[in-house]
């Protein structure tokens, strides 16, 4: 697919909206960083625990990390789409 193909498939924003959308992420970055750190800490706990309670606490925390990561990311997706919709609504 070429640049022209992307144009033809309506992948690009209408030309009047180019530059209107910021390329910074709508995801709450400090919170996401916190979840990633939580994920890494949980893996570290699994290792340190050596099969004892700490390992399973680590495994449990890993699940918390996965769901909190998904939740924070999905919230970012909602925010981002709202922003895009607002820009597109100007045409309506």
């Amino acid at each position, binding site marked *: 697919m070429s640049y022209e193909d992307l144009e033809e498939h309506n992948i690009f924003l209408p030309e009047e909206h180019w530059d209107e959308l910021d390329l910074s992420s709508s*995801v709450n970055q400090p919170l996401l960083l916190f979840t990633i750190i939580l994920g890494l800490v949980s893996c570290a706990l699994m290792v340190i625990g050596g099969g004892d309670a700490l390992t399973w606490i680590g495994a449990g925390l890993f699940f918390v990390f996965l769901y909190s990561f998904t939740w924070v990311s999905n919230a970012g997706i909602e925010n981002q789409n709202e922003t895009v919709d607002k820009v597109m609504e100007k045409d309506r």
Partner: protein
Amino acid sequence: MSNTTSEESGKTGVGLSRDLSLFDITMIGVGAMIGAGIFVLTGEAAGVAGPALILSFALNGIVTIFTAMVYAELGSAIPEAGGGYLWIKEGLPGSNAFLAGWMSWFAHAVAGALYALGFGAFVYELLRMLEVPLLQYGIDLTLGKKIFGVFIATTFAYINFRGASETGKAGNIVTILKVIVIGIFCFFGLKFMFFPDWWFSFGEGGGMATSQLQPFIPDETGWLGILSAMGLTFIAFEGYEIIVQAGEEVKEPRKNIPKAVFWSLAIVVPIYMLVAFVLVGASQSELLISALHTIGADVPAQLTAEVANWKILRHVGELGLARAAAQFVPYGAVLILVGGVLSTMSALNATTFSSTRVSFAMGRDKNLPDVFAEIHPDKHTPHLALFWTACLIIFMVAFVPITTVAAAADIMFLLLFLQVNIAVITIRKKYGDKLAYGYLMPFYPVVPIIGIVTKLALALFMFDHYPIAWVYVIAWLAVGFGIYRFYAMDREREKEATPILAEEKTMDVKPNSVLIPVANPETSQQHIDLGARIARLSDSQLVLLHVITVPSQLPPRAATDFVEKARPILDKAREYAEQYDVPVSTQMRVGHKPADAIIHTAQDKNTEYLIMGWKGAVHKKETVIGSNIDHVLKESNTHAIVMQQNGQKALNRILVPVANPETAPLGLAVASLLMEDNPKGKIDLLHVTPDEMSPEEKGEFKDKVFEFVREKEGGQEALIADKSRFSFNFITSKDHEKAIAERSGDYDRIVLGTSQDEFFRRKVFGKTPARLADQARCPVIFVRPKQPGFKFEMQDFFQFFRELEEMGHPNNENSKKQQGN
């Protein structure tokens, strides 16, 4: 989207229908990830990492998340069938995209064949347990796997033919059933480990809690074992590739694709970890060994009841989970075999779907034959791409020793993901300001960089463990590269070519051409003079091209109104050229950018020499000569001559500065031909050195120049009628640019070649000649010799990244100019 007629292009568009909801698409991802992997690979991976398999899965989850963010971003912005292949096509230069699609198609088909064979094995085992006398009919396990494998591959090809919605529904049911089976396995396993007597008692020796999971990282396996298990099972987590392959069929793709990517991981990673926990935590060595005896497997003498269970699981292979389940789940073996059957079915469904979409996208891009891009009029599915993909899968199931190429498929996936991680960076730089991203990854560009590093590390790790797999990868890539060079590349160019509005061909067609873009017949006369002389001496035809430029908002057919106005321009130029008695053909093309039309004509007409006009100095940071000329020179590997426009026709003195004898012949040929009408005219070669040259050095330099004229550059000696008219001048100066510029005042023209200082810019002459052109006191002619194909392509590759670096942030002005807007 369905089949549509594009008003703008006037062509029938091909599109797929948007049927898949967030739930459907998440289930496709989950179905792909909880595929045969969990049933087939878990036992073997436990044998490699021991209880730390749980950690291997967790770490794979983290590694995967980085590439998942990349897929979520690109999937939300470019939700088209083809996924990774398509983005690589947009984001990376040259043959990268073809090879990515080529690898992706093959890797998904191999995975599909593996799942079909896995299905065959589980069905065979189930029928054996039900005492169906298969052996009486001469059907052993090997043959049975193939028979059932071919059957299921054909069935899912038909289901995929029925449409994405049907595919999604079938897949959803299978995926949900599979999750239920795994849920039952985990539930009874946990009960057996912690509460063996609660509710009812089943199996002996329960209540071991987590004792079998200690030590968590056994000394025998260590971190190497964890990494090996990661490499072995990594591919099971890459279901998001399949999610994005379906991008063109997803409702609200901007929102649903990224969400599905994250949800599928959040569902799958805990399931893998739980299964590993139960498998290693609950299965008992003694019972596993007796199961090995039951199925008649060779049991090594060192495997005793005292050996840790995970060491035995490796030997139980694909039936490991079923054997473990038999110990603590009522009807456990049957249940897991049914689960295995369902898993392999949904994974086969997903890989058939994905593999078909890649080949469909490649067909649409002319990288594969056109039949791959055909959409069924009723079902709106790419039926012929599906047919050929199914043939590939069935062939592998029936005839190929599939396990030997499976590791190669793993490496191909890793290389594909690595390319996608690079593409996300380049796409942001190229198109970032024009795309409606539904998700933008945080911590850019750290995330893709981590993705690149981890994929590369895993691929290299695979080399250490599966060197033969790399041989297969290289062989498959070599075949793909051959197809690209000798088939796909030309078709791709043809597709992207600017339309020809009118063409008059000469009767005397020559294999090569001298191409002259004509905007104004008056100012083009000098170019025609030179071009006709080159054509005569090099036995080529002269091609005169007029380009009608239309704004990007208008379709190319809008240019038809301008054809009649443009025709006299070409007629006049042709009339002038015909005085030279060389074959002349004319062409009128239309394009949004004149450069593209010139490039496409040069490709069509096998142009050896390209002569263009130049208005004068351009002082832009991002261009060397000018954006159009730069673009043509980057894309066309021809002998290129760019002449500064000037009314003066009579030439008496031409200066040819020569820094390197290697680049001198074309400049000398041009000077010689321009002076053809004037036998008394002088051509001075000028060589500037910082230190004085000895007479011997000067003699050597002259000899080298003539040596190159004779031997190099494809016979330009034929263009030089009289070498005796060249006179060599050597001057000493620390500032060679200033020295040349000062001398140029005494001449009618100065001929500048490519500079040696900037290798990657040599396609567009280099900054030194551009600066010289600014300072010169007479009109300038630039010459750039044609280059060996490989060198030209390598420069192209590096040029791509150089441009990206220069473009910087997509919102800046420079970026827009690079896009021609």
